[in-house]
C-alpha cells in the first residue's frame, strides 16, 4: 500500500492527537499512525474494549474533534524505517504501507524507567505504570494479595489510586525522593491548584496507606515468584511480605524514531526550536520526546507542531507563552524527583541488567560504553533492543545510546524483504520522480 499526505503524525497520545487535529483543522491532509489498537497513548489508555471506567473529559473532547476531522487514522501500524527523505515504511503483521509526507510530527511519548535490583526479574515484579496499564486491561489482584508500589514520580501515586479504585488497598507506597526535595515543588504546585487537588484526591483514595518518602526497594526474593521485598531508607533495612511489586523510576522519552530520522538531541530529549521544529528539515517533535513534562505540556506542543506543520506559524506562536509555564512546572518536578545516587549501588555482580540476554551487572561494569557492552556482552541486543536496559545503563554507567538501526520495531521478515527492494528503488529513483518532496512515489 502506498499513501501520500501533507502531515504524518506518529503516536496517538495527547501530543499526537492534538497535532493531528490542529493540522487537519488547518486544512492539511493528515495521517495519524499508532501501533496500539486504540487512540489515547499510555496516559489516555483505557480498556482495550469499552471498559466501565469513566474516560477523561479532555480526551473525549479531542477524540470527538479527531473523529470529525479529515485525519486518516491508522491504528495497529508500526514504523519500520525511513525509506529515504519524506518516505516512511509502516507494517502491520505481514502487510506494509509506504507513506510519503511533507512534514512529520514525532509524538512517540515516553516509557517507564525500570532500574535493576536483586530479584527484579522474578514473576510478580513489574513497573509501576505497568501495574496501572494491567489494571486498565482487566488485571485484578486476588483478594488478600499484598501489592506494594515503589520507585519515584507522580505516576506512583496515580497508580496507587487506580489500585484503590478497584478495591485493593496498596500494602505500601514508597517514594525514593525525600520530603524536603518534594517540598521544593510547593510554590509551583500552588500556581497549578488543579495539580495540587489531584495529588490530594489520590492521597485520600489510598488512605490509610500513606506515601512514605525517602524509601526504596533494595531487593526482592522468592522461590518461583516474589514473596518478600527488602525496603530501605538508606540507614535501616527491613523485609515486607509482598505478592506483587510495582516499581518504576519515572519516565524516559521514546527516542528511537527521532534518532533514526537523524534529529539532534539536547539533554534528555530531542532538540527543538520555538515551534517544535527539529534539526532535520520538515520534522517536528512534540510531547514527552522533547523532555518529560506531562499531559498539559504535551497537548500544547502537539498543537504548536500541528499548526506549524500545516503552515500556520503565527497561530502556533500564540500558544508558546502558555507552554513556557508548563515547561517551568516540568523542570521543578524533574528536580524534585531527581534519582538518588544510592539507587546505582543496588545491583550485585550477579544481578541481571539486560533482561533479554541475561547480562549481569558484573560483566557490564567492566565495559566502557554502550557500544563495547553490546559487542562484548550482547547487552541491548535482544528482543527489546535496549528499550529497557538502555535507560538503566545510562543511569548506572552513564552510557548514551546514540545510534538507531532499522527496523524500529520487531516485524515479520516479510516486511523487511520488501523493504530492501523498495529502499534501493526509492533511493535511486527518488530525486527524479520528486518523491523526496512527498508528492508522489515511484511505482
Amino acid at each position, binding site marked *: 500500500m502506498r499513501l501520500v499526505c501533507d502531515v504524518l503524525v506518529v503516536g496517538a497520545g495527547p501530543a499526537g492527537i492534538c497535532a493531528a487535529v490542529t493540522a487537519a483543522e488547518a486544512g492539511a491532509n493528515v495521517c495519524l499512525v499508532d*501501533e*496500539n*489498537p486504540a487512540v489515547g497513548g*499510555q496516559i489516555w489508555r483505557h*480498556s*482495550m*474494549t*469499552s*471498559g*466501565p471506567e469513566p474516560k477523561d473529559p479532555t480526551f473525549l473532547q479531542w477524540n470527538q474533534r479527531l473523529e470529525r476531522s479529515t485525519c486518516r487514522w491508522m491504528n495497529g501500524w508500526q514504523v519500520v524505517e525511513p525509506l529515504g527523505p519524506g518516505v516512511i515504511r509502516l507494517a502491520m503483521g505481514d502487510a506494509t504501507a509506504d507513506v510519503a509526507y511533507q512534514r512529520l510530527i514525532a509524538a512517540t511519548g515516553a*516509557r*517507564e524507567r*525500570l532500574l535493576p535490583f536483586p530479584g527484579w*526479574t522474578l*514473576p*510478580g*515484579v*513489574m*513497573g509501576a*505504570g*505497568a*501495574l*496501572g*496499564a*494491567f489494571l486498565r*486491561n*482487566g*488485571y*485484578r489482584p*486476588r483478594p488478600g494479595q499484598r501489592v506494594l508500589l515503589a520507585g519515584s514520580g507522580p505516576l506512583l501515586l496515580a497508580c496507587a489510586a487506580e489500585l484503590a479504585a478497584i478495591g485493593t488497598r496498596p500494602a505500601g507506597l514508597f517514594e525514593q525522593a525525600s520530603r524536603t526535595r518534594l517540598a521544593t515543588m510547593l510554590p509551583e504546585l500552588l500556581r497549578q491548584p488543579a495539580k495540587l487537588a489531584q495529588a490530594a484526591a489520590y492521597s485520600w483514595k489510598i488512605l490509610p496507606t500513606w506515601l512514605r518518602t525517602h524509601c526504596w526497594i533494595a531487593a526482592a526474593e522468592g522461590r*518461583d*515468584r516474589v514473596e518478600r521485598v527488602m525496603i530501605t531508607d538508606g540507614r535501616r533495612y527491613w523485609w515486607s511480605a509482598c505478592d506483587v511489586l510495582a516499581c518504576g523510576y519515572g519516565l524516559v522519552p521514546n527516542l528511537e524514531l527521532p534518532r533514526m530520522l537523524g534529529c539532534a538531541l539536547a539533554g534528555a530529549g530531542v532538540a527543538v526550536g520555538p515551534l517544535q521544529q527539529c534539526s532535520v528539515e520538515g520534522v517536528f517533535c512534540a510531547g514527552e520526546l522533547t523532555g518529560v513534562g506531562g499531559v498539559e505540556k504535551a497537548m500544547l506542543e502537539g498543537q504548536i507542531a500541528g499548526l506549524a506543520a500545516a503552515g500556520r506559524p503565527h497561530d502556533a506562536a500564540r500558544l508558546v507563552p502558555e507552554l513556557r509555564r508548563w515547561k517551568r512546572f516540568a523542570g521543578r518536578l524533574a528536580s524534585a524527583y531527581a534519582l538518588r545516587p544510592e539507587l546505582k549501588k543496588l545491583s550485585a555482580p550477579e544481578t*541481571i541488567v539486560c*533482561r*533479554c*540476554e*541475561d547480562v549481569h551487572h558484573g560483566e557490564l561494569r567492566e565495559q566502557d560504553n554502550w557500544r563495547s557492552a553490546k559487542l562484548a556482552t550482547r547487552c541491548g541486543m*535482544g*528482543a*527489546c533492543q535496549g*528499550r*529497557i536496559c538502555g535507560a538503566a545503563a545510562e543511569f548506572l554507567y552513564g552510557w548514551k545510546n546514540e545510534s538507531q538501526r532499522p527496523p524500529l520495531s*520487531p516485524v515479520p521478515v516479510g516486511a523487511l524483504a520488501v523493504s530492501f527492494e523498495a529502499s534501493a528503488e526509492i533511493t535511486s529513483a527518488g530525486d527524479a520522480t520528486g518523491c523526496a518532496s512527498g508528492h508522489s512515489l515511484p511505482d
Partner: protein
Amino acid sequence: MAKQLSLVVNGRLVEVEEGTSVAAALLMADEPARISVAGERRAPFCGMGICMECRATVDGVPHQRTCQLVCRDQMKVVTA
C-alpha cells in the same frame, strides 16, 4: 456485569472478563510467560509492549506480545 470468556492457558481453563488482555489473564492465573536465555521464568513486566517479557504462543502463533492482545473466547495460550 461484563461477559465472561474462557481461555486455555497451558492446558488449564482460565475465566476472564471480556476486554481483559492476555497478559492480565496470565498474571491472574499465576502463569509466567517466557523462559529467559539462562532459564529463568519471566512474567509480564512493562505493560506497554516494549520489554517483550510477556511473549507466549497464542493460538499457535509464537512470540506474541500478550500485553497487546485482547482475550478471545476459546483462545489457547501456551507459555514456555
